[in-house]
C-alpha cells in the first residue's frame, strides 16, 4: 500500500506544473500519527523538528522519528535554538521546551509569554517560528470567528488581548506589541537583512491574500485589533472603511486569489546560494488550499518593499503550510489539509523538494524600472517572440466584505521592448500607476530552443513608483 501511495504521489508530481529539475520526495511520517505540520525548523545538525496541529513536536534524526513533546494546544510555529531548546507558539502561550535530563524528550515546558488574550475560540491561532535581529521571538495573533460576545465590524472579531496584533517577546519574557491590523496571519519569515514578513489570508478587509513587511507601530488594515489601541467600540463603529484605508500600510504583494493562493503559509527565504536553483534571495511560500508553492521577489524602494509573485510548483499531496530549507538546499514542505480543505488529497504529511541542477526555463525576476519593467529569464529568449506577451492591471477593493474580485481590470500597453545582449533580460516601457497589480502573460514567449515557460504569469504589485 505504501508503494502504491508513493507511486501515486510520483505520478501527481509528474503531471502537475513543475519546473524542470525539481522533484518532490515524500517523507514517511510516524505511523498512525496525525502529522499535520504547522511548525517546522531544522537544526544545524540537520535534524528536522515538526510541530503538529494535534499538539506534538516530533524530531527526525538519522531517519528516525522521536516524539520530543506532546499535549500542546494546536502549535502553529516552531523554531529550534542552538542550545537544542525548541520554542513553539501554541494557542494559549509561547513556550520554550527543554530536554533537561537529556533523554531525548522535553521535560520542561516554560512559558515565554501568555500576555495576550486567548478565549478558547478555534480561530485564535498563535503563529510564530521567527526571531528578529535582536533575538526577540516574534508572533502573530489571529482574530476570532463566530463569537457573539466579541467586538468586530465584520466577520473576524476580537475579545481583546491583542488579537489581530503582532508581538515580540525577549528571551527573558518581556512582551511588546509590534503592530496591529492583522486578520489571519498564518505565516512568518525573514529575509537576509532580518526584516520580518508575514502572510495574511483573504477575507474581510483583505481583498486577496497578501505578503506584508512587519514594522513597528504599523496598522495593516483589519480594524478589529484597534479596540486594544486608543479606539473605543463606538469610535470604531462610527468610522468608515475609507478612514481605515487612510491608516493602513500597503502590502508588499497582493497574491492573486485562485491563480496563486487561497491560504498562504510562511515565507521562507532562499538563502541556499544557488543550491535550490536560480531563485536565491527570493521568498518561497506554500499554499494550503492549492497544495502548491509560489515565489515572491522583493524590490525595496526607499524603506518600502514591493515585489512580484510567480507560481512555482503544484501537485503536493496536501496543503503546503510550513517551509524550511535544509543545509543541502532542499526545501522541506510541512503539510495539512484539515479545516480549510486542500487540493492535495491527503490530510497531512511532509514532503521535500530538491533541485538536480537542471536549469528550468522560468522567469527569474521582474523588477520595476523608472518607466516600465525589467524581466529576467533563466535562459536565453528567442528574439522573434519577445513582443508576444500581454499585460493587464487591476486592483482590489479594501472593504469589510469578504474578499474582493479583481477590479478595474484593463489591458496595459507597452513599447520599446528590448532584449539584452545575453538574451536573458527583457525591458519595456509601460504607463505606470500606483497601488495596482501588473499581470504579465508570457505564455507565447519562447526560449532560444523553442520551449515555453512552465509558469507563464507574473504579478507585480506596484505600490510606489521609482
Amino acid at each position, binding site marked *: 500500500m505504501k508503494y502504491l501511495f508513493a507511486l501515486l504521489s510520483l505520478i501527481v508530481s509528474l503531471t502537475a506544473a513543475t519546473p524542470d529539475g525539481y522533484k518532490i520526495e515524500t517523507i514517511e511520517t510516524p505511523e498512525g500519527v496525525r502529522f499535520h505540520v504547522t511548525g517546522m525548523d531544522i537544526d544545524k545538525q540537520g535534524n528536522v523538528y515538526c510541530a503538529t496541529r494535534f499538539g506534538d513536536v516530533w524530531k527526525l534524526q538519522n531517519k528516525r522519528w522521536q516524539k520530543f513533546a506532546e499535549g500542546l494546544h494546536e502549535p502553529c510555529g516552531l523554531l529550534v535554538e542552538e542550545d537544542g531548546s525548541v520554542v513553539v507558539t501554541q494557542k494559549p502561550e509561547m513556550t520554550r521546551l527543554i530536554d533537561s535530563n537529556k533523554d531525548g524528550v522535553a521535560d520542561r515546558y516554560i512559558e515565554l509569554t501568555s500576555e495576550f488574550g486567548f478565549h478558547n475560540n478555534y480561530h485564535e491561532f498563535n503563529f510564530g517560528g521567527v526571531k528578529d535581529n535582536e533575538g526577540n521571538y516574534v508572533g502573530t495573533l489571529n482574530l476570532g470567528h463566530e463569537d457573539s460576545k466579541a467586538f468586530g465590524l465584520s466577520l473576524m472579531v476580537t475579545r481583546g488581548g491583542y488579537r489581530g496584533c503582532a508581538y515580540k517577546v525577549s528571551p527573558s519574557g518581556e512582551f511588546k506589541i509590534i503592530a496591529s491590523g492583522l486578520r489571519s496571519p498564518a505565516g512568518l519569515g525573514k529575509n537576509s537583512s532580518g526584516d520580518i514578513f508575514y502572510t495574511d489570508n483573504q477575507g474581510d478587509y483583505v481583498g486577496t491574500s497578501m505578503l506584508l513587511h512587519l514594522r513597528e507601530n504599523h496598522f495593516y488594515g483589519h480594524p478589529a485589533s484597534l479596540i486594544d489601541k486608543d479606539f473605543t467600540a463606538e469610535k470604531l463603529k462610527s468610522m468608515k472603511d475609507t478612514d481605515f484605508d487612510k491608516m493602513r500600510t500597503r502590502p508588499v504583494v497582493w497574491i492573486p486569489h485562485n491563480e496563486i493562493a487561497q491560504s498562504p503559509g510562511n515565507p521562507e527565504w532562499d538563502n541556499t546560494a544557488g543550491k535550490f536553483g536560480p531563485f536565491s534571495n527570493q521568498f518561497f511560500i506554500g499554499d494550503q488550499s492549492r497544495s502548491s508553492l509560489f515565489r515572491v521577489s522583493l524590490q525595496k524602494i526607499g524603506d518600502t518593499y514591493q515585489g512580484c509573485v510567480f507560481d512555482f510548483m503544484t501537485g503536493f499531496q496536501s496543503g503546503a503550510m510550513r517551509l524550511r530549507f535544509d543545509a543541502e538546499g532542499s526545501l522541506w514542505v510541512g503539510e495539512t489539509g*484539515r479545516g480549510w480543505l486542500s487540493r492535495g488529497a491527503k*490530510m497531512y504529511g511532509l514532503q521535500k523538494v530538491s533541485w538536480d541542477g537542471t536549469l528550468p526555463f522560468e522567469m527569474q525576476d521582474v523588477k520595476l524600472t523608472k518607466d516600465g519593467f525589467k524581466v529576467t529569464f533563466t535562459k536565453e529568449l528567442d528574439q522573434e517572440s519577445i513582443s508576444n506577451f500581454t499585460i493587464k492591471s487591476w486592483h482590489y477593493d479594501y472593504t469589510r466584505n469578504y474578499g474582493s474580485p479583481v477590479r478595474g481590470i484593463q489591458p496595459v500597453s507597452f513599447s520599446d521592448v528590448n532584449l539584452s545582449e545575453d538574451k536573458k533580460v527583457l525591458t519595456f516601457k509601460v504607463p505606470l500607476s500606483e497601488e495596482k497589480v501588473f499581470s504579465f502573460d508570457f505564455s507565447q514567449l519562447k526560449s532560444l530552443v523553442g520551449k515555453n515557460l512552465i509558469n507563464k504569469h507574473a504579478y507585480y504589485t506596484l505600490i510606489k513608483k521609482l
Partner: protein
Amino acid sequence: MIKNSIFLLGFWLLVSVNANNDESIQRGKKIYETVCFACHGKNLEGGSGFNLRDTVWVHGGTPSEILKTIKKGFPEKGMIPFETVFKENDLKDVVNFILSRQQGFKNLSYKIFQNLRADKPIEDLGLSKLKPEKSGVLKLPYLDINLPEVDWFGIQNSGILVIPESGEYLLKGILRQGSHIQMLIDGKPLKLDIQKEKWQYTFEHKVELKKGEHDFELNYVKIHKKASFHIELEKDGMTMPLSKGAFIKSQNRQIVIASTTKPVILRKRIDGLPSKTIAVAFPEKVNVAINPRNASINGLWYGEFVDIGPNVFGRGRLASLVKTPYIFSGDEGITVLENTSKAEVDYLEYSTYPQARFHFKVNDKKLSIEMTALGESLILTYRSESKQKLSLQVPEGVTLESLHGQTVNNTLIIDPKHNEKFTVKVTKKETGK
C-alpha cells in the same frame, strides 16, 4: 479517518457464507446488536471500529475474508477473536447481516475536462460527449469534484449506487455554487432546487428509490473556487454519505486521550474549564486540571480523561469533552491563600520529570505544586518560599487531608513551619456520609 482502500468489487455476486436467507440475517442482526455495535456503531456507521456498511474493506471484503477477520480479531487493537466466543455458524450469520446492510457507491469512476468554462447551461455543455483529459477509478467510493489540478474544469463521476431498502429518500447537498451541477439516477436528471444560504448553496430533493443497484452520474463544472461539496442521502434518520466531504464529516470523531504508564499533560480547549487550563491524567484514572492564571486546582474527575476529537477534527471549533462528571470544575477549586487573601500569581512553567510539577511565583515568592495519584486520591505536594501564613480553599465535593495543617471551615490552614514542603491528600467526598 480515511481507511486504506481496498474495494469490495462485487460483494453482491459472491457466494454467501451461510444459507443467505432472512432468518440468517435476523440471527446475525441480534448478535450484532448485542456485541459488535459497541465498536462499529448501532447502524454499522463505525465508532472505535471501522464503518461496516460502506464498500471499503481494510482486511478484505469477501464473505470468507470478513468471517476470518471476525474469527481471529485484532487483539492488539481491541477486537477479540470471536471464534472463542461464538460458533462458526453464528459468525456466518453476522457476516450475512453485515453484507445485507451494504450501501453507497461501487465502480465509481471519474472524467476530468480541463479548462471547461461554465459559459452555458451544463445540459448544453454535454459532458458525456466530450473527450476527457484524464479519467480513472476513484480511490474511495465517494463523489469527488476536487481531483483536477487546473483552476477551471468540468468533472463527471459515474458508477452504481447501492440502495439498502426501497422507499423515499432525501438527497441533500451543500456546495459553493448554485448551478452547473447535474445528477442523474438511472439516466434521469434530477430537478434540483438549489437555494442560496449565506456563503453556500443547498438543496433537498425527494427521490423514490428501489432496493438494489442504480446507475448514477454527476456532472459538475466549476464556477466557484474548490470548496465544500457535501452530498448525502437520508432516510428515517439514517444518513448515507455520497460525496467525499460528507464521508469525512460522517467519520467517528472521538479521540480519547489516556494515561497508561505515566501522567499525561494536555493543553486543549476542554468543556467546563476556562481557556489556558492545563489538564493532567494519571494511570490511576484520576484526572486533574490546573489554572495557570491563579495556580488553582480547578478540575477533578475520575475515569476516562478527555475526548479531544471535537477539538481536533475539522476546524477544531468545539471543546474537548470530559464524559464523566466533574467532582469540581470552574475557574478555581483548590486555591492557595496567603494570609487568607488571594495572592498575585505569575505562572512560570511545568515539568514532567521526575513528576508532573507546576511552577509559579506567588506574591513574588516561588511556589511549586507537584501532583501524583494514589489509588483514587490526588496527592499534591506544595513547595513555597513564602514565610507568610498559607492556606488552601477546599472546594465542594472533596476533602483535603494533610499532616502539615488542619481544616477549619473549608480551609486547610498550613502550619507555616511546613511552608517549604507540605503534602495534601485530595479525596472525593463520599455522598451520604
